[in-house]
Each structure stands twice: as structure tokens, then as C-alpha cells.
């Protein structure tokens, strides 16, 4: 079935009825696009070919409390979505009552979201974003006008299946930080039950003048899960976005992160870590557009590949004409723990302005033999020594998470993954 046929069969037309116009527009747009292929430059290393023959179905929308495995130390409110639907029983009741934070499905009158939901990127490379608008069932809306003290966690759980049909879910999140506001949000994506699944999530983010958003995203799905995400952010003058990504699960993961620096003095940090082991494939595609002068962007990723794991890192910063005084840096460092693993890394800079400070670098290395020996002379067993070194290597890219309970959560999840990691 084509994407169009799938959407016609499955689109939840009774959901988010105020968005029907955009849903219909997306469905009809799917008539003229297909899944991205290796011919699309941005999809050179990652194939979604298995989706071509898959029959998408909706998933059961049920999960037990145990599946929401947030650490007790996490200090924030929690909203839980199961298979793309808001789950009141698993969420903090206080979270939904708050005007700042709500599920899209709880919105009744038309919220005038044309700017968000009407945005349809064109072409095969973006066809899953179009599919998202056609198929979206729910998501979170965070709209803050002041500084919010505690972090907010949004949990997305997916049920897996061993049947032929592929359970799928499509969520859309909108985050708007108004002038001078500050908020820290966690997106936690995981499997509720084992088996194959397809989860697509699209987060749109608007950081207005002087606002600060910290968005930390963790993906910890089971080993048969497929995951495609997209993030679009716009940063106004003197605003700050700190975005972190941690990938510790899944069979196939693809992240597209697009950030537009539109106001002078905006600051962007994209940091993160990934562990691609077993047969997992993790693809990071970042694009940062410096449109105006005196903005900074830093993209710092650490990765570990082991087993038959494969990691792709392609980060592009474009400094447009007139964006003088830009500072843009990209760094991707990888540890390769096995012969059968693979890393394809390509940090890119396109500079069309003067007086800029830009750098990019990528490394792929192995564990240091002397460091391994040093740890073992301190009675630390070989496997633990390896875990400690890889953990130390990756964890640096998560230290820039400023919310402490989030940082502790993420670094511990990374440590747990690396200690149980299959080589």
C-alpha cells in the first residue's frame, strides 16, 4: 500500500477535528510523494524500505504503570501518551489542569494553529512529516509565559507486536516559550511491550525573544522498534535553546533536527549521545540555519557503536549572507567497540558571511589500552572497565543539561545501557 492508501485507511478523522483542514490537506499531498530512498541525499545511509511493504495498524493504547519507568528522583510533572493517545490514568492529574500544559486532544475550540499544523514540508525526503499531519492522534502543547520551576516530562509509550501488521503511532508536540519565559521539558520515548512498532513524533518549537527552553529527549525503545522523529525550532533574538538527545534503544532510529536562528544573539546547543549496539541503526540529521548576525550554535555528539551497530551523523550549519559575527561549532566523536560496527559521520559548514568563528570535527577511535590497564590495576574487572570508559566518554555530552534531576536521569540511563551492552 502507498502512503496515501495507508493514510486514507487509517487517518483518525474523528480526532483533533479542529485540525481537519490540515489533515485533509496532508492526506491529499501524500498522493504525490513516496517514502524517501537512497536517491535523496539526506537518506543515503538510512533506508525505510521495510515500511514499503508494511501494513500499518493502530496499536491497543494500553500500558501498565510499570512501563512508565521514571526515576523517583525526577522532580517534575508527568504526562503519558500510549500509542499516540493521552492516558489520564498514567499521567499526573495536576498536569492537565494547568493551562500551560495540555494534551492536544483536550483542546476543544479551534486553537488557531495554522502556523504549526499548516506547515507541510515538500518532497519524498519529508514524506513522513506529511504522513504525521495526516495520521496524528495527539501530542502535548506546552505554552509558557514565565519561568516554570520544575521540569515537565512527556512520556510516549509504544506497544509492539509480533504479528505481520505494524502497530504505528503519530504524535505532534507544540512548544511555545513566550518572551522571557523559561522551561525545561523532557520527552521520554520507550516501548510499553516488546515487538515491532513504528513511532513517529514531530515536535515544533518556538522560542520567543529572551526565552530559554531546555528540551531533553530520550529514546529507549525495545530492539525491534522503529522510530522516526522530526524537530523544527525557531529562535528569536537573545533566546536560548538547549536540546539534548539520548539514544539507547530501538532497531532503527532517524532524527531530523532543524533549527532556524532568526533573531540576533540567539544561542543554540544541541548535545547528545547514542549507543548503537546489537543490530541497531541510529541516524542523526541536523540542520542549523544562521539567518541573522551574532548567533551561536554548538552541536556536540558522542557515540558508541558495538556489535553490528551503525551510527550516522550528519550535522550541517549554514551561515547565510549577512549573518556576520556567527559562531558555529560541530563536533562528533565516536568509540568503535567491534569490527562489525560502522560509523558514517559528516559535520558540514556552509559559510556565506564574514567575520565568523566556525569549526567542525569528527573522530572515530577505540578504547585506550593504557586506560583499560590503569582501571584493571585498580581491581576493576575488564567488562566494568570498558563500561566505565565508554560511559565517561559519552556522559560528557550530557553534562550540559542544566536541570539536575533530568541530568541524573539521563546519565544513569546511559550508564545502565553501557553496563548491559552487548558487544
Amino acid at each position, binding site marked *: 500500500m502507498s502512503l496515501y492508501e495507508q493514510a486514507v485507511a487509517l487517518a483518525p478523522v474523528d480526532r483533533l477535528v479542529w485540525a481537519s483542514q490540515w489533515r485533509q490537506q496532508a492526506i491529499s499531498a501524500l498522493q504525490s510523494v513516496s517514502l524517501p530512498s537512497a536517491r535523496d541525499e539526506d537518506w543515503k545511509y538510512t533506508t525505510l524500505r521495510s515500511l514499503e511493504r508494511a501494513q500499518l495498524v493502530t496499536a491497543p493504547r494500553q500500558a501498565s504503570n510499570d512501563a512508565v519507568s521514571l526515576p523517583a528522583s525526577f522532580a517534575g510533572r508527568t504526562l503519558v501518551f500510549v500509542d499516540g493517545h493521552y492516558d489520564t490514568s498514567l499521567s499526573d492529574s495536576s498536569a492537565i489542569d494547568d493551562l500551560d500544559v495540555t494534551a492536544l486532544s483536550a483542546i476543544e475550540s479551534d486553537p488557531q494553529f495554522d502556523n504549526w499544523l499548516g506547515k507541510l514540508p515538500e518532497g519524498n525526503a519529508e514524506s513522513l512529516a506529511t504522513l504525521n499531519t495526516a495520521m496524528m492522534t495527539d501530542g502535548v502543547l506546552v505554552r509558557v509565559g514565565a519561568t516554570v520551576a520544575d521540569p515537565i516530562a512527556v512520556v510516549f509509550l509504544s506497544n509492539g507486536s509480533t504479528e505481520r501488521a505494524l502497530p504505528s503511532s503519530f504524535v505532534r508536540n507544540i512548544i511555545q516559550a513566550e518572551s522571557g519565559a523559561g522551561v525545561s521539558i523532557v520527552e521520554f520515548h520507550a516501548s510499553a511491550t516488546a515487538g515491532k512498532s513504528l513511532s513517529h513524533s514531530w515536535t515544533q518549537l518556538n522560542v520567543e525573544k529572551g526565552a530559554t527552553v531546555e528540551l531533553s529527549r530520550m529514546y529507549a525503545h525495545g530492539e525491534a522498534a522503529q522510530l522516526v522523529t522530526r524537530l523544527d525550532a525557531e529562535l528569536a533574538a537573545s533566546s536560548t535553546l538547549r536540546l539534548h538527545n539520548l539514544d539507547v534503544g530501538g532497531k532503527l532510529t532517524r532524527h531530523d533536527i532543524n533549527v532556524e536562528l532568526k533573531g540576533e544573539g540567539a544561542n543554540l546547543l544541541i548535545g547528545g549521545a547514542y549507543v548503537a549496539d546489537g543490530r541497531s541503526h541510529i541516524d542523526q540529521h541536523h540542520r542549523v540555519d544562521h539567518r541573522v548576525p551574532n548567533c551561536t550554535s554548538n552541536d556536540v555528539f558522542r557515540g558508541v557503536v558495538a556489535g553490528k551497530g551503525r551510527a550516522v551523523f550528519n550535522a550541517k550549519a549554514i551561515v547565510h549572507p549577512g549573518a556576520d559575527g556567527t559562531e558555529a561549532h560541530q563536533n562528533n566523536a565516536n568509540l568503535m567497540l567491534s569490527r562489525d560496527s560502522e560509523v558514517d559521520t559528516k559535520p558540514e559548514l556552509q559559510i556565506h558571511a564574514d567575520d565568523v568563528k566556525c569549526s567542525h570535527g569528527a573522530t572515530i577511535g577505540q578504547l585506550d589500552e593504557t586506560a583499560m590497564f*590503569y582501571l584493571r590495576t585498580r*581491581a576493576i574487572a575488564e567488562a566494568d572497565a570498558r563500561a566505565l570508559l565508554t560511559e565517561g566518554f559519552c556522559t560528557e555530552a550530557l553534562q550540559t543539561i542544566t536541570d539536575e534531576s533530568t541530568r541524573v536521569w539521563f546519565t544513569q540511563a546511559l550508564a545502565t545501557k553501557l553496563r548491559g551492552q552487548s558487544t
Partner: protein
Amino acid sequence: MSNALLKVKNLHARADGKDILKGLDIEVQPGEVHAIMGPNGSGKSTFGNVIAGRESFEVTEGQIEYLGKDLLELSTEERACEGIFLAFQYPVEIPGVNNTYFLKTALNSIRRYRGEPELDSMEFLKLVKRKLSVLHLKDDLLKRAVNEGFSGGEKKRNEIFQMAVLEPKLAILDETDSGLDIDSLKAVADGVNRLRSEDRAIVVVTHYQRLLEYIVPDRVHVLADGKIVRSGGKELALQLEEQGYGWVQSA
């Protein structure tokens, strides 16, 4: 019958395809401090690495008996659990790994091996704070990553600090004096002297006699071309200082 802690017989070892140790013999009793002195390239560092079990050094001949056991049968970490400690000439920087966490993992590995209960964070912190004050080290050392951004002196003092926490039976100090100014040298020597005890042996590997003014050895050995060519009391170190290594090598 000797009750030697360490008994090395006719030890031959190679690394990178080159024979380095060519029949080394040494015996160390509990409570003793030995110094192994020798010119560059004589095999001093190889000795420490082989005792600690570095896999890139291959033992081609000879025996090492430690506490009556065949040391060559044990992995690096088992040797550490059995009480062997190597203070590195160049302590390794490990970014992202917190010093406290690292040391707690190390100590608890040893305690687990010995069937002792592991220490929790509070108990461990109490222990390390006591050891820090004895070595005149600052608390902030605990919060930093292992050796990262440490000065040469801090790295060497951190090695001795680790030794104080892990309480080995046999400590080998590999050129612990190299790159130290006189104040750091004294601090390191003072730390080592506080760790001298009846059931702990220390082997100081050094090029210069200087450190031995502060850590006074019971026995001094001269290593040349992979063999001990002369052994004696502490006065041997002074004699070497005056007459140079040429004197023993030609002997």
C-alpha cells in the same frame, strides 16, 4: 623455606618484539622497602607492568610467586584484588569518570573479592576524607574526573592517595619521583612513609637517588640490561649517585 611476599625467578619478558627483561631475580619480604634503580631502557618500567599484569608485555621464561601463588595465572584485576598496586609513572587521565566513583568501584571490587561487605556512599566518603587529610589533599580532588587537568604533582599524589585507600600488600611505585618539584616530592614521600607497615612491602622504581633520601629503602638493586646486576643496602644508592651507572654496568 622463605615466607617471601614476592619471589621472582629468572624472569624474561618482551614487548613490541623486543626482549627487555633477561633473567631478573628478586625476593621481597613483607614490611620491606626495596628500590630498583637503573638507567633508561634497563627494564624498570617493564618490571612494574609485568608484575601488574599488562597484557602487551609477554613473559617468555621464569616464575613469579606471590603469596605462594603463581602470579602469572592471575588477571590484572585479580592481582589487584590480591593486593598488588602499581603507581603509574604517567597516571592516566579519564575524562567523564568521577574520581570518587572510580575509587569506590575499585575498593568495592576488592572487598567483594575478599568476601567483605561493600561500602555505601556515606561510609566510603568518610573513609576517603580521612585518607585525604592524612595526605594533605583537598576535598575538591574527589569531585573532579580521574586525573583530568591535574598537575604533575597532583597526579602523583593522587596515585599515593589511591594506594592509601586500597591498602595493598605490595605496592610498586614506578618513577613516582619523575617530574616532581621538591615540595611535591616531599609530600609524596611523606605519604608513602605513612603507608609503610609490617605487612606491606613497597618497591620503589627510580632512576635517581633523590627520592631515596626521603623513602629510605631496606634493599637497593641495580637493574641493567634486564637483569639485577648488584644488590645491597641503602648505601648502594649513594654510591650510584656518586659514580654513575657505568660503574655497575662494567662490573
